[in-house]
């Protein structure tokens, strides 16, 4: 689904619109736990909150600066470790720091580490930069096993977030209280990072992303721009990481692992790196997948991997770009003609998904189920997988599903392309009329 000319969908709100959006966001944050009252919902909302901060901080590098980092977990993780140690110091009384200020400790830690490690990292750009962040990430992860005093060894470092009840009797023991602390920081950090995009440094960062060479010829030191952005990203990453510590009250070496970094990358990209709100969607998806999807099927990461591959190939702007493209189509009134194609696409996609998940689930159960009686339950249907004809049947189903999907996809693209052409004609017509 590629548009032939990529119109960046700049929502240019009049001031009223801006207040509405931000007010709505604040309202959403405040009201959400009242609407979704279960314990699980609260867990999800809390995690989504600080994950939004983390993914936005990551997108400061990726989407805004064109810097692909494979080591973001270093900054979130070290923020978490510094925060958990600060919490322990505060609990024991050596550091009189109320819990609401702990995230700032994490932020400053993230900033400091980014200042230190960012200097060699930002010496290069593009692909070498990506590899350097990978190497630095591995360095820090390997170091975490060498210094158990700081990283806590196998068991990690635990803390108790309920140590300070002086603040109006709020001890932050109950989940709701933690949520509102997270929500507050989420709002402030989101607003701050959005504001950053409107500043000279923020804009020059975009310029560096688009054309790093030209930036040098208009007087700016590209490396300095990247380094400063790296530090700002590290600051917010540290804040997010501190909340991991506050939320779970334990931090292990896994928090700085390459797997975490990969997760941030994957979901920020999935949400959409080219729009400011894309990472917010990504954060929501991240939490939903790791908490909910993992309950539905143990093979959820495989599906995730395939979705990611699919997105890179067909929708590199992520979910956000898909939303915006469709909003544009809707704005021009073309959605009506596309909805049947969408339905067909959805249907074929569902069939394909079912077919592929059939294979995945069977293999998964075969692998786990060494007591091999040869039968697997799939959506309530018993399948005898030791017989060949079942496998032939499965292969046929998959092949048919693939074929069907490809056919529907092409016809959808055709319809989409026609809609785009019509829209462009309309745009030209409107311009000429001006």
């Amino acid at each position: 689904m590629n548009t032939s000319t990529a119109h960046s969908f700049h929502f240019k709100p009049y001031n009223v619109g801006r207040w509405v959006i931000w007010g709505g966001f604040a309202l959403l944050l405040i009201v959400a736990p009242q609407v979704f009252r279960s314990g699980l919902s609260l867990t999800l909302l809390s995690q989504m909150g600080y994950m939004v901060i983390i993914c936005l901080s990551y997108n400061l590098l990726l989407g805004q600066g064109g810097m692909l980092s494979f080591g973001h977990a270093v900054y979130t993780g070290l923020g978490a470790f510094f925060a958990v140690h600060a919490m322990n110091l505060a609990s024991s009384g050596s550091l009189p720091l109320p819990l609401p200020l702990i995230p700032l400790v994490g932020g400053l830690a993230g900033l400091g580490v980014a200042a230190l490690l960012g200097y060699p990292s930002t010496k290069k750009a593009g692909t070498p930069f990506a590899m350097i962040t990978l190497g630095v990430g591995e360095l820090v992860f390997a170091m975490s096993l060498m210094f158990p005093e700081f990283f806590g060894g196998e068991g990690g470092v635990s803390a108790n977030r309920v140590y300070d009840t002086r603040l109006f009797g709020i001890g932050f023991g109950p989940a709701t209280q933690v949520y509102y602390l997270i929500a507050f920081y989420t709002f402030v950090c989101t607003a701050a990072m959005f504001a950053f995009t409107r500043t000279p440094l923020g804009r020059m960062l975009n310029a560096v992303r688009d054309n790093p060479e030209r930036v040098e010829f208009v007087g700016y030191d590209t490396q300095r721009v990247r380094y400063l952005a790296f530090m700002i990203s590290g600051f917010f990453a540290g804040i997010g990481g501190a909340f991991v510590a506050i939320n779970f009250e334990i931090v292990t070496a896994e928090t700085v692992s390459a797997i975490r970094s990969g997760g941030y990358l994957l979901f920020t990209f999935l949400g959409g790196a080219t729009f400011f709100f894309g990472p917010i969607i990504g954060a929501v998806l991240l939490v939903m997948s790791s908490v909910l999807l993992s309950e539905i099927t143990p093979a959820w990461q495989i599906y995730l991997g395939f979705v990611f591959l699919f997105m890179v190939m067909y929708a590199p702007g992520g979910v956000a770009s898909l939303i915006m493209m469709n909003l544009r189509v809707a704005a021009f009134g073309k959605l009506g003609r596309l909805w049947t194609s969408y339905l067909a696409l959805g249907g074929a996609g569902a069939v394909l998904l079912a077919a592929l998940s059939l294979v995945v689930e069977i293999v998964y159960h075969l692998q786990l189920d060494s007591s091999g009686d040869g039968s697997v339950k799939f959506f309530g249907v018993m399948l005898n997988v030791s017989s060949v004809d079942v496998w032939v049947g499965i292969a046929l189903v998959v092949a048919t599903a693939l074929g069907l999907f490809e056919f529907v996809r092409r016809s959808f693209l055709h319809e989409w392309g026609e809609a785009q052409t019509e829209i462009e004609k309309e745009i030209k017509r409107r311009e000429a009329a001006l």
Partner: protein
Amino acid sequence: MASGQPPAVELRGVCKRFGKTEIIRGVNLSVAAGERVAIIGPNGAGKSTLFNLISGRFGPSSGEILLHGRPIQGMKPYEINRAGLSRSFQVSNLFGRLSVFENIRCALLWAMGHRYEFWKFLAGLREVNERTDEVLAMIKLDRKRDHLAMNLTYAEQRALEVGITIAGGSSVILLDEPTAGMSKSETNRFVQLIREVTVGKTLLTVEHDMGVVFGLADRIAVLVYGEVLAFDTPEAVRANARVQEAYLGSVLAESQAAGAQA
């Protein structure tokens, strides 16, 4: 031309070698402040390389380059730009995903005293925004201010390219084949634009279009195989036997013929 003022751009014995190939072989050039110089020569003569050397894209193998009397060889591009030199590119080098307005604004932030500020809003920088609008009006792209740079037509992109170059108000402007790929009428309009926006500035331009060259330049430098064959007024260059032999003859005849038909 005030004497006693150092030349705006001066090259002394500049050589540039890539591996074993010597592209620039001992170029000496002195451009006075406010002068308009065109650099002509056959393809592969090293004209773009010369620009790259002056603007800092890479450094010379030997020799000196001076900007307003200050040696700038080996300096980084942004240092040279801050010292008062701006250049355009033969292939438009824009900020594709930013709007036309943003392109120009980015080009003049540093020149207008701003640095790596993240505590101020762009919308509040009144002088910057006003100057951006001025430049947009100068290059006649004010109606396209919100269009993305990558969606402009070719000629519009060339105009934006020049706009980015002059926005910061550098005293020395280098234009690398600004009218490349343009039609006759577009070229004429563009040359007029160049004349307007470079008033009072020192201009070096690489050009192939002889009509543009003879109409725009105070002096012409002829670069052939990395050496300056002649550096003189258009009439003197036209009459120069060496130049005619090496380069100009056929080209000039062509353009005269074209001129006669127009």
